[in-house]
């Protein structure tokens, strides 16, 4: 690393994707290093540090550490489910290094390899962010089931008042399950053979972050939540039908009573006339 590279002053790059400013390449990296902010689904900003190296970056151990520290910067990690890793994942890959954390990533490698690595990392970051968001929403729903589970069995007198609330949770559960179904093919993508550098990175990232296992777990949870709210919906419908039936029954009773009264009046009138 040259003295110029060691320049401790952080440099600012223009954000190529979003036009936002304020991104700074961490100090101590080569002058060719760059930074991008990319919006990944579901609308989350992902900062990507790109550090070109030449050949095997054996002499760039310091760069790797600097990039790792930058990626792990505190306060950047979005609120994640407990199972979610907050420690940056470092993947050495045939002369390149890739670091990933939920809000930041870095690729270090020969110039000719950086494009493939960036595309693969960003695709993964989008997929992971999507899954993390679904995990968060599913966990919220799961917590709510504790209070709602009783309504899946029987509605009490307060039940009808909660119908709208339960309906909105059911809709949210359906949306989470739909999101998980849509994400499935990207998470459970079969390994590519013969592999490319991008496919090797994608496989390692999925493996290290246990993406398939997380997807399966949250899918199981979403199915459970969906069952609860489907049952709540069933009970809500039954309660509404029961309410309507009760009104109908009262109407019939009133009509019968009225009919009976009229009959009595008629009977009394006929007796008086005789």
């Amino acid at each position, binding site marked *: 690393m040259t003295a110029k590279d060691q320049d401790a002053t952080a440099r600012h790059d223009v954000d190529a994707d979003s036009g936002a400013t304020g991104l700074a390449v961490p100090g101590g990296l080569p002058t060719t290093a760059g930074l991008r902010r990319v919006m990944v689904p579901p609308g989350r900003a992902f900062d990507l540090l790109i550090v070109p190296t030449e050949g095997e970056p054996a002499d760039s151990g310091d760069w790797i550490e600097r990039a790792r520290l930058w990626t792990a910067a505190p306060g950047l990690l979005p609120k994640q489910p407990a199972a979610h890793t907050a420690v940056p994942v470092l993947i050495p*890959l045939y*002369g390149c290094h890739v670091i990933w954390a939920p809000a930041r990533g870095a690729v270090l490698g020969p110039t*000719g390899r950086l494009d493939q690595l960036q595309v693969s990392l960003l695709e993964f970051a989008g997929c992971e962010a999507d899954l993390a968001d679904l995990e968060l929403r599913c966990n919220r729903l799961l917590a709510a089931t504790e209070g709602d589970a009783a309504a899946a069995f029987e509605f009490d007198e307060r039940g009808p008042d909660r119908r709208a609330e339960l309906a909105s949770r059911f809709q949210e559960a359906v949306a989470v399950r739909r999101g998980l179904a849509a994400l499935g093919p990207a998470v459970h993508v079969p390994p590519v053979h*013969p*592999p490319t*550098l991008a*496919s*090797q990175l994608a496989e*390692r990232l999925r493996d290290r972050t246990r993406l398939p296992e997380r997807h399966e777990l949250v899918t199981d949870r979403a199915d459970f939540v969906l069952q609860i709210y489907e049952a709540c919906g069933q009970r809500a419908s039954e309660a509404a039908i029961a309410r309507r039936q009760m009104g109908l029954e009262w109407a019939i009773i009133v009509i019968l009573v009225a009919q009976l009264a009229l009959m009595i009046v008629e009977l009394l009138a006929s007796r008086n006339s005789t």
Partner: protein
Amino acid sequence: MPQIAIVGGGPGGLFTAWHLEQLATAPIEITIFEATDRVGGKVITPRFTAAPVHYEAGAAELYDYSPVGDDPLRELVESFGLPTVALGGSRVYVGGRAIANLDDLRDAYGDRACRDLGNFDTWARSVMTPREFFASGSDHAGSAEPSGRFDTTLAALPSREIRHYLETMIHSDLATPPAATSVAYGLQNYLMNDPAYMRLYCIAGGNEQLIDALVARLAATMRRSTVVEQVGEGSADQLRLTLLGHEGRREADFDIVVLALPMDALGRLAFASGSLAAAMQRHLAHHDHPAHYLRITLLLDGPPHTPTDDDGYLMLDAFGGCCLYLESAREPEARHGVLGWLLGGAAAESMAAWSDADLVTAALATLPDPLAVDPERVLEARVHRWTGAVSSLPGGWQPLSQDQRHRPAAKTHPGLFVVGDYLYDSTLNGVLDSAEHVAGCVAAELTDHAREI
């Protein structure tokens, strides 16, 4: 009580005993005879003396077929609660250049070579699907398996570079030159690199733990350091074994004898009866296509300066194509480095005569620059010669049916069975299949016999 002798305390013998004990519906008495003082055969995980570090000296990896179908070995390992580690490695060093993916291949040889590999890959998959790969070696394999010589397939590749790349990639698994093996076996060894066909794994802490787990659970009597010299005819349809052990030479009769021996040991065994000797000669002649391995393992004073990838092994184009196991890379906290070379085929056979010191020097000289190790860093070196230890499955060779394979003299000596990896694909998974088949046959016969009585 039926007396069963299993000759050979390698994985074949132990697996057979294990399955017999699981399947037997009546009490049986199993005795395992092992010529040496250790059991486990080619599954051996010794320790260096210079440091408490273990290494694989024989079978280094197990095949995981579970993505395609039933995997009895994987199930057995899991049932014993043994932790496993996935093994991967896509780097092939050709001319000192690392090729780990299509991007590297394109950089090294250009777009045309990349297309050639793609075409070969597409053809290989069309010839053998994952299901066919899984069924190969069994009676369900079908006659569609290509049976020509594998070198003719490679010769048809337009790109010389791709040919060399493929030969380097699969040579150490073939353990024989492409000219001496079949298209089917060659393709299997190429396709096994595709995770859709199978995956590799090893047992954390050493594959020999599988042997220890088996031995701990077996009720069979184990006779170590007992050489079976001859198989002959005993009284009342029994088979008589001539044994040489600590107590001298003696004879013993058994109802069932299972020969679970490697090819070379089977060739040394004497058969007293003429018909039995002739049957065994036919068996040997059909299956004796020896292939060779040689393992050189070095203990280093620290982890080697290998690129710190996840890969557990890589391929070098030295010695006609060899595998370099980065054994210490499997243990993140390893203080020492362990590098293991697996040589196969003609190189392994010819170099088996070399001294250990010469082999170590030759091995170190094969390391490309990024992996180079100063000889001063070598604390200890171990060499294991596995000459003729596996079978090469030559081109044009037609496998026999399962029953013919395992009962060389079914009519004259129905109580004699053979078990071996050479009856399948020279893997641990293959020998388990072999053992399962024989145990099933024996258990069925014993049940029938008990009913008759």
